[in-house]
């Protein structure tokens, strides 16, 4: 920045001061010398006058010595009339003959700065009195220097005042002349330079004559125009760059949002998978319970089988007893006692049978309850598999699709971003060219300034400013270029991260599909096991029916036996009647045997079905645990994916920060350039 030239440094002021100094010192010395001369002249004249007066007094004293009154009067008039302050006449022996004086002040020791131009206020003179060559006394005269001092005082005041007025007039005319011829153009050039160095390049210099100032003004104008056009170019360039950076920042924000959405989708998938996992755990629990129940079924069945065996044995015994009875009845005529005994035995056996059948009935009821529970559990399992699980898996698949599309979108955005930064590189190249041009301009300006010599000094300040500006621009451009390179490498990183997250997303997608398939298979198995359980239930119900029949038959047998007992008691009624009764018994026993066999077959079928169901349930358990493993691996993959998403977000944020730095850099550059006020581009 150029400072305004102080008035005390201007050429005009210096010149005027010099002339003033010479005039004042020369005139002062001359005038002082003149005054000294005049003082000595006046002093001599005064003392000559006083001497003449004293001479006169002496003569008067001699002539009027005899008349003191007359002498006194003479002295009085003398003292009153002029510069004589006191007169004293003494005789030879020192007695005062006559004395007269006016009031006057003895001069004090005060210092007068112009003492050399004044005589003392009080002076004295002593003259001897002679009468006929004989000293008779002395005359003392005191006189005042006031009259001389009055003249000197006037000379010290009036002429110097006139002199000062004359000087002022001369100085005023010199200053006017210089201001008109030199000061004005210099001032105008200075003002223009001050504005230019202050950054205002719209300054105009014109109306100069074809002299030295005119040539300086033309050179200045040429330089200012070149600088202004360069600055305009640079300004538009930096605005472009800042626009591009704004766009870049916007694009980055989009990328960031995309990645955040991606992370959200990932989280959705994870919660879905977790839900599927929870459903699976419940299934596993239910299947475990089912297995427990089927185990219980098997033990019940075994118990039932044992009971059935017992029944069979009892039935066999019954049959044999009946046959025995038959043979005994055939020999009935032998003894009725034996018959009664046998009948009693038969009754006892039937009671045994009845109790056994009741036992079986209880077991079968238990089996029935268990089978019903199994059927309910199997249908529950089917419902769970068919409903919740399939929903969760399809949720997961949907989330996966969203995720994939998000990842694709962010990948596209990042590619666009990469293209943008290439554009910026192109712009930077243009800025570099402009900077070189500016540097050249500053060199030319420096050369012009150097050739202009003293006049070009201010110019060279402008040239240095331009050079500094171009250097700073070059440094900034280099820095920006580095930042762009960093951004590009970071973008490449982001692209890599996004690609790998895309791969993982694809992998997860296939995993989810596979888990869906497995789920469908599990559903199939569950359906099969449910139908099995249904079959078991049905078989058990059939068994229960069979047992009811058995109970009826046994009741019949008991009745028959009672009947037999009655018949035995009514032995006398006839053997034929008895025989008939016994054959009835035999028929009933046949029915019992048949029922027992049927029951055994039913139990066998139940057992087989239960084993099959058990096997199926175990298969369901295996499938479920496999599915759970799959779910766990999906969850792990999702976690990994989320980690990669986070890395991508961090990368993008870093790029964002770099962009902000770049933007600030450009803003700074712009601000620096804004310091130069430039005419709008031509």
């Amino acid at each position, binding site marked *: 920045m150029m400072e305004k030239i102080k008035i005390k440094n201007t050429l005009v002021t210096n010149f005027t001061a010099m002339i003033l100094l010479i005039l004042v010192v020369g005139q002062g010395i001359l005038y002082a010398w003149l005054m000294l001369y005049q003082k000595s002249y006046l002093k001599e004249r005064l003392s000559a006058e006083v001497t003449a007066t004293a001479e006169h007094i002496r003569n008067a004293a001699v002539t009027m010595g005899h008349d003191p009154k007359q002498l006194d009067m003479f002295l009085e008039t003398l003292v009153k009339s002029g510069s004589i302050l006191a007169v004293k006449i003494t005789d030879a022996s020192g007695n005062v003959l006559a004395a007269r004086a006016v009031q006057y002040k003895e001069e004090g020791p005060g210092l007068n700065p112009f003492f050399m131009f004044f005589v003392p206020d009080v002076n004295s003179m002593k003259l001897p009195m002679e009468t006929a060559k004989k000293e008779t006394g002395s005359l003392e005269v005191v006189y005042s220097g006031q009259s001389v001092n009055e003249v000197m005082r006037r000379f010290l005041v009036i002429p110097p005042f006139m002199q000062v007025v004359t000087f002022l007039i001369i100085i005023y005319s010199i200053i006017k002349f210089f201001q008109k011829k030199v000061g004005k153009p210099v001032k105008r050039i200075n003002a223009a330079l001050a504005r230019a160095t202050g950054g205002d390049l719209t300054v105009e210099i014109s109306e100069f004559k074809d002299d030295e100032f005119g040539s300086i003004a033309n050179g200045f104008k040429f330089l200012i125009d070149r600088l202004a056009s360069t600055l305009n170019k640079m300004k538009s360039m930096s605005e472009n760059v800042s626009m591009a950076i704004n766009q870049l920042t916007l694009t980055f924000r989009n990328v960031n949002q995309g990645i955040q959405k991606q992370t959200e989708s990932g989280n959705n998938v994870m919660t879905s998978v977790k839900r599927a996992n929870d459903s699976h755990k419940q299934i596993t629990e239910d299947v475990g319970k089912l297995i427990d129940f089927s185990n219980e079924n098997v033990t019940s069945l075994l118990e039932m089988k044992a009971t059935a065996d017992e029944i069979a044995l009892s039935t066999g015994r019954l049959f044999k007893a009946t046959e025995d009875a038959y043979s005994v009845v055939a020999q009935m005529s032998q003894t009725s006692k034996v018959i009664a005994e046998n009948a009693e035995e038969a009754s006892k056996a039937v009671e045994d049978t009845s109790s056994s059948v009741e036992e079986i009935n209880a077991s079968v009821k238990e089996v029935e309850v268990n089978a019903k529970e199994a059927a309910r559990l199997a249908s529950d399992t089917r419902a769970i598999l068919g409903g919740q699980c399939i929903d969760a898996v399809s949720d997961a698949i949907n989330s996966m699709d969203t995720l994939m599309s998000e990842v694709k979108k962010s990948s596209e955005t990042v590619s666009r971003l990469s293209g943008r930064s290439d554009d910026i590189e192109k712009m930077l190249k243009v800025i570099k060219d402009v900077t070189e041009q500016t540097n*050249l301009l500053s060199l030319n300006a420096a050369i012009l300034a150097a050739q202009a010599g003293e006049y070009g000094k201010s110019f060279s300040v402008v040239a240095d400013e331009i050079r500094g500006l171009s250097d700073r621009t070059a440094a900034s451009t280099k820095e920006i270029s580095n930042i762009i390179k960093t951004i590009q490498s970071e973008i490449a990183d982001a692209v890599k991260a996004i690609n790998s997250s895309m791969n993982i997303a694809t992998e997860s997608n296939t995993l989810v599909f596979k888990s869906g398939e497995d789920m469908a298979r599990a559903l199939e198995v569950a359906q099969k096991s449910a139908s099995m359980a249904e079959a078991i239930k049905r078989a058990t119900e059939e068994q229960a029916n069979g047992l009811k029949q058995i109970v009826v038959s046994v009741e019949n047998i008991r009745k028959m036996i009672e009947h037999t007992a009655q018949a035995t008691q009514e032995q006398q009624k006839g053997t034929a009647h008895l025989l008939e009764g016994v054959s009835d018994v035999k028929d009933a026993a046949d029915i019992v045997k048949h029922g027992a066999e049927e029951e055994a077959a039913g139990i066998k079928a139940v057992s087989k079905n239960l084993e099959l169901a058990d096997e199926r349930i175990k298969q369901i358990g295996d499938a479920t645990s496999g599915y759970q493993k799959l779910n766990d691996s999906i969850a792990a993959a999702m976690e990994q994916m989320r980690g990669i998403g986070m890395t991508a977000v961090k990368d993008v944020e870093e790029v964002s920060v770099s962009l902000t730095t770049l933007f600030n850099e450009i803003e700074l550059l712009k601000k620096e350039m804004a310091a130069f006020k430039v005419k709008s581009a031509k």
Partner: protein
Amino acid sequence: MEKFAVFKIGKEDFGVHIGRVVEILKSQKIYSLPELPDFISGVIDVRGEVIPLLDLRKRFGAQAETRKCRIIIVRYEDEKIGLLVDEIDKIMQFDPEEISPSPAMFKGLRTEYLTGLGKKEGRLVILLNIERLLTSEERIVLKESTGLIEEEDAGTGKSA
């Protein structure tokens, strides 16, 4: 106190007195004409003025770098002549005691080219004597050829 425009050819610093310099230009299109002598590498058009170009890099045996180049326009007698150099550095001031007379031979350059060696800020600047850059023979050839160029220029002007 003398001011010199300092430029680089290869690794060496050269100086030319600032009073001589007219202008500094960046690389321009160089027209080569068949009539030009060998030591002139072409002519350039500076705002309508045709100026012959002397490749100082070739003259001082440095390898011509096409990567970057600048042109200094200097006054040579009554003419202007362009000097082709690698790079312009800055304007340097040398006090008389900073300029030493050139030795008989310096870095393979004939000292008739030189006015002296400037030493400042740890740098050694070879100060060129523009008047002696061309031999008297070359000077005559240059005058003839520039006359030729001007005629040609005038001719094309008329035809256009």
